[in-house]
C-alpha cells in the first residue's frame, strides 16, 4: 500500500483543483455567450420568442443540475457523438449557466426605465444599436453583483460533475479517501479549497451590492 502523507493529499487536491477552476471558467464563458442569445430571445418584441426563452429558462431552473448532466452524458451519444466526461460537464454547465445568467440580465433590462428605450429611439438608433449602446451596458452594470454571485454558485456546482466521472476536486478526493480512509481530513480540505475559491468572490459580490446606489 502506498503511504499518503498530509502533503501528498494536499498536493493532489490542489492539482485537481486546477480542473475545477478551468471547468468553472469554461462554463462561465460558455454560459455567458449562450445566455446572451437566450437574453435576446427573452426581451425580443415577438411574443413567441419571449415564450420560448421563458420556457428554456424555466426548464433549467426547474430540474436538478445532476439530471441535466446525466441527460448530456447519456443523450449526446444517442445522437452519434462520442462524448467524454469533460465535454458533457462543460456543455451541461454551459446550458445551466446560460439559463440563470439570461434571467439575471433580463431583470437588469426590466429594471431600466422605459424612457431609456424611447430616448434611444428618438436619437434615431435602431433596435440593435439601442441594445448595444444604451440598454445592455446599463443592464450589465446594475446586475454585476448577482452575476458574480452566480459565478460562486457555478463553482460549487462543478462538484456535481464528479458524479458523471469528470476528474475534478471532488472525484479526486473520493479516490484519495478510498486510499487513506481519512474522510474527515480529506473532505475538510476539499471544503477549505472550495471556500478559498468562493469566499473572495462572495465578498466582492457583497461589496458591489453595497456600492450600488439606491434607485
Amino acid at each position: 500500500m502506498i503511504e499518503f502523507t498530509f502533503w501528498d493529499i494536499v498536493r493532489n487536491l490542489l492539482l485537481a483543483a486546477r480542473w475545477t477552476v478551468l471547468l468553472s471558467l469554461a462554463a462561465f464563458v460558455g454560459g455567458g455567450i449562450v445566455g446572451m442569445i437566450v437574453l435576446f430571445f427573452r426581451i425580443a418584441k415577438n411574443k413567441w420568442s419571449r415564450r420560448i426563452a421563458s420556457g428554456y429558462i424555466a426548464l433549467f431552473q426547474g430540474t436538478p443540475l445532476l439530471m441535466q448532466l446525466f441527460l448530456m452524458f447519456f443523450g449526446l451519444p444517442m445522437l452519434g457523438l462520442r462524448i467524454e466526461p469533460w465535454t458533457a460537464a462543460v456543455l451541461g454547465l454551459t446550458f445551466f449557466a446560460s439559463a440563470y445568467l439570461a434571467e439575471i440580465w433580463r431583470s437588469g433590462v426590466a429594471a431600466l426605465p422605459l424612457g431609456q428605450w424611447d430616448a434611444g429611439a428618438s436619437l434615431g438608433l435602431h433596435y440593435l444599436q439601442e441594445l448595444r449602446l444604451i440598454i445592455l451596458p446599463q443592464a450589465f452594470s446594475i446586475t454585476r453583483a448577482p452575476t458574480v454571485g452566480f459565478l460562486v454558485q457555478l463553482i460549487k456546482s462543478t462538484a456535481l460533475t464528479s458524479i458523471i466521472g469528470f476528474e475534478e476536486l471532488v472525484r479526486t478526493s473520493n479516490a484519495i479517501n478510498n486510499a487513506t480512509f481519512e474522510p474527515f481530513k480529506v473532505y475538510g480540505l476539499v471544503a477549505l479549497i472550495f471556500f478559498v475559491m468562493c469566499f473572495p468572490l462572495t465578498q466582492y459580490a457583497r461589496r458591489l451590492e453595497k456600492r450600488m446606489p439606491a434607485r
Partner: protein
Amino acid sequence: MAFAWLPGALGDIAHGAATTILLIAVTTLAGTLLSILGAAGRRNGPVLLKRAIACYVEVMRNTPFLVQLFFIFFGLPSLGIRLDPILAAMLAMTLNMAAYTIEIVGAGLDAVPGGQTEAALALGLRPRLVFIKIVLPQALKVIYPALTSQIVIMMLESAVVSQIAVRELTYEADMLQARTFRSFETYFVVTLVYLVLSMALRRLLVSGGRRALGAGVS
C-alpha cells in the same frame, strides 16, 4: 428511444418521488425553524454566538452541498457519530438550507419597523411573545417569496443525496437505468418528474402562504 420498461418502473419512480418529498418536507420544517433561531441569535445573541452564526453561514454558503454531504456521511463516523444515509441527508440538507434562509429571515426581521416592537412592549407583552406574535409573522410575510424559491432550490439539490445511497428519485433512476440499459430515457422521464414536482411544490407553497400569512405572494 424506447419506453417499454416504463410501466414496470412506475412503482419505483413513485417510491423515489415519495422519499424526495419526505426529504424536502423535513428539511423545510427543520431548516425554517433553525434559521429563525439563527437569525434571532445573530441579531440579539451574545457576541460569541453572533460570530459563530456568521462563520457558519459563510462556510456553508461557500462550499458545495455535495462536499458537505460527504463530510457529514463519511467524515462524522470518525468522530463516533454514525448516521443512517437518510438521516445524514436530512441533516446535510437542513444545515445547508438554514445557511441561506438565516440571511433571508434576517432581512425580513430587519424589514419590520422598530415601532412595532416598541408598541408591543408598551402594551406589556413579554419580549419573547413580542418576537413570536408581532415581529415574526410580519417578517415571514415579507420574505415568503424568497423562502419559497429557496425551498424549491433545495428540492432540486436533493438529487445529490443519491450519492450516499438514499433511495430517493435519482437513486431509483440510477438503479432503473442499470437494469434497463435505457439511460437516456430513464433520466429523461425522471427529469420530467422533477419538473412536475418543482412546479407543484412552488404552487403549493404559494397558495399555502396566501392562506396562512395572507401574503401578497406572486
